[in-house]
């Protein structure tokens, strides 16, 4: 099955939609005169639908969740980030989070490149546990990136207040209360999804190789990431580690996450190595 030129056009439409909306949000935040970009909601939703069509096509075409190569993983991650943004947009009406999430989604989607013809995979990738493992892990990681995004906005807003910056400068940033709430929500849900994803992955590993855990690079780093967020969440719940300190640690967490996602994909051996999985 080949989408041909239609696939390329849709791929470009997604980039354009997200890039345009990122710009609109930036203007909305920095220029006091710019009105609420209502149309951007339509554009970003349109972009997301186009993206979903492409992801679904690749998935249905192969029968396998399209995450098993570096470019596919990038694209799927981009889709997960956009999905999270759409959710935050409609649930909390915090347009501003797009300032962090949408450029990331755009870059990942662009780096992933246009979809090529879907190819068949080795049979051990056909397990439903892989699908569950993939979806949960990616959504979990995207949600944790959402926590990072809200943290960045929190840190900016906090600095704005402390340094007594002009009230008109970035006047559209959400209040600390809202940002803190979103940070916490994203962190908690991201952690839950990631945990479930890791468990699903372990079940799949047991089915495929008869062992739940093999200490591959990706597994090890995922565990480190998991432990980091577990600690952060524990501190938050038990002693109210919110505010600036919590947000700074979430920025660190994002770096760990990014390394686990990209760096560990090229280390060691096993099914998480992007370069071995291609084709």
């Amino acid at each position, binding site marked *: 099955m080949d989408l041909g030129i239609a696939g390329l056009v849709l791929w470009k439409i997604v980039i354009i939609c997200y890039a345009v909306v990122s710009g609109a949000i930036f203007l909305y935040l920095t220029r006091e005169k710019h009105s609420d970009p209502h149309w951007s909601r339509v554009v970003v939703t349109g972009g997301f639908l186009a993206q979903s069509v492409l992801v679904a096509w690749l998935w249905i075409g192969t029968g396998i969740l399209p995450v098993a190569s570096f470019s596919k993983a990038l694209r799927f991650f981009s889709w997960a980030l956009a999905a999270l943004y759409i959710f935050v947009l409609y649930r909390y009406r915090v347009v501003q989070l797009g300032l962090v999430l949408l450029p990331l989604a755009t870059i990942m989607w662009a780096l992933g490149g246009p979809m090529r013809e879907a190819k068949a995979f080795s049979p051990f990738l056909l397990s439903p546990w892989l699908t569950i493992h993939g979806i949960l892990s990616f959504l979990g990681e995207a949600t944790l990136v959402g926590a990072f995004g809200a943290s960045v906005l929190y840190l900016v*807003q906090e600095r*704005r*207040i*402390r340094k*007594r910056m*002009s*009230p*008109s400068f970035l006047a559209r*940033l*959400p*209040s*600390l*209360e*809202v940002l803190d*709430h979103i940070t916490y929500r994203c962190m908690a849900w991201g952690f839950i999804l990631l945990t479930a994803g890791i468990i699903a992955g372990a079940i799949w590993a047991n089915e495929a190789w008869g062992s739940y855990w093999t200490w591959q690079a990706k597994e090890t780093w995922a565990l480190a990431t998991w432990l980091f967020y577990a600690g952060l969440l524990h501190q938050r719940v038990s*002693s*109210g*580690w*919110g*505010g*600036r*300190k919590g947000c700074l640690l979430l920025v660190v967490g994002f770096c760990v996450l990014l390394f686990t996602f990209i760096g560990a994909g090229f280390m060691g051996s096993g099914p998480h190595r992007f370069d071995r999985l291609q084709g």
Partner: protein
Amino acid sequence: MSLLLVGANHKTAPVEFREKIAFAKDEIPELLSRLVASGPIREAMILSTCNRTEFLAEGEEIHSSLEVIRQILASRANVSTREIDPYLYVLTGLDAVRHVFSVASSMDSMVVGEPQILGQVKEAYKISVQCKTAGCTINRLMHHAFRVSKRVRTETDIGKGAVSVAYAAVEMARHVFDTLRNKTALLVGAGEMIETAGLHLKQKGIAKTYVTNRTFWRAKALAHRLGGEALPFESLGSSLAMADMVITCTGATEPIIKKEQVKAAIKARRNRPIFFIDIAVPRDVHPSVAELQNVFLYDLDDLQKVVDNNKAERMMELEKAGEIVAEEARKFSLWFSSLEAEPTIRQLLEWAEEIRLEELRRTLKRLRRLDEREVEAIDLMTRALIKKLFHRPIVKMKRDGGRDGSASFIALARELFGLDGRESGK
């Protein structure tokens, strides 16, 4: 017919004079009927607020109208008319229209952009309507003024940003809290500033207000007025932990809220933020409190800067608002001057119609064998002839008040067509 505006405001007269010529609401109806009864004035309206007293009059002759108003003001202030002149401004025609629009748009207010003035203008107009001293001109002028005010408010930022310290304090909270509806405020002190801030908080829907003060009964009285609860001053330290927002303004000479107390409060609150606003001089909250995590502290200087900044921004909007007012005033004067041309145009058309009917009658008498359709065609033709002939002169008379330089087309038309010897409607 002409428009006259006479008044004194905070820019032209000191408060000692303004208070002398201020009129209470129930004095105005009597005054209005006196004005209209005086002869030269046909329509009148009086606006009297703490910053201004203004008489708006429409009448046949400006000088005698002005004289009537000066007499009233002078006798009210108990001085001679000569003595009140330096404080008064006298505006006529387009200038008067522009002034009315500026006042209603809050551009002439002491605090530019304050919203109360529009209500006061509306009230003044209402009284004038009730006393039947508002006629065609004032009705039209005031309704236009309300529209201009709305336009200025939506198209410029003249009413944006807090311009009082108490309001700025509440506004700043917006950056920290999403809503005040589930927040608790602690007010330290019981003075006027605290009360104003408390009222603003209440307006924004604060969930709970505590008041504490060294003199407990005053805290209790204020808490009662604000619908809050008074707390003993001695337990200030432990009260802090309950508050999301603390506003202080006491006469204490030393800081009464110290870092250790706030640190303990934040710990007890499990790091939920506290927003301190210290409007006291000397300060009530020790500056080192601001070093703590999840604590935000603004003092009077910070708020004053915000207020000054907002005031400056409102002043910058004045220019834009001025353009709107000028544009609208031109629109109004266009209508106003067409009103001036109106009787002349009506007379002119009546005269033409008389001639038309007379000539039509004579012609039809001679052409006896015409059928109904042909008669109708001739009738239509003569109507069209008149309409086309007079179209340009009428447009010319309506535009610019029928004036081109010093020449008045209206006067010219009356002269040319001999209208002054005729009475309209005959």
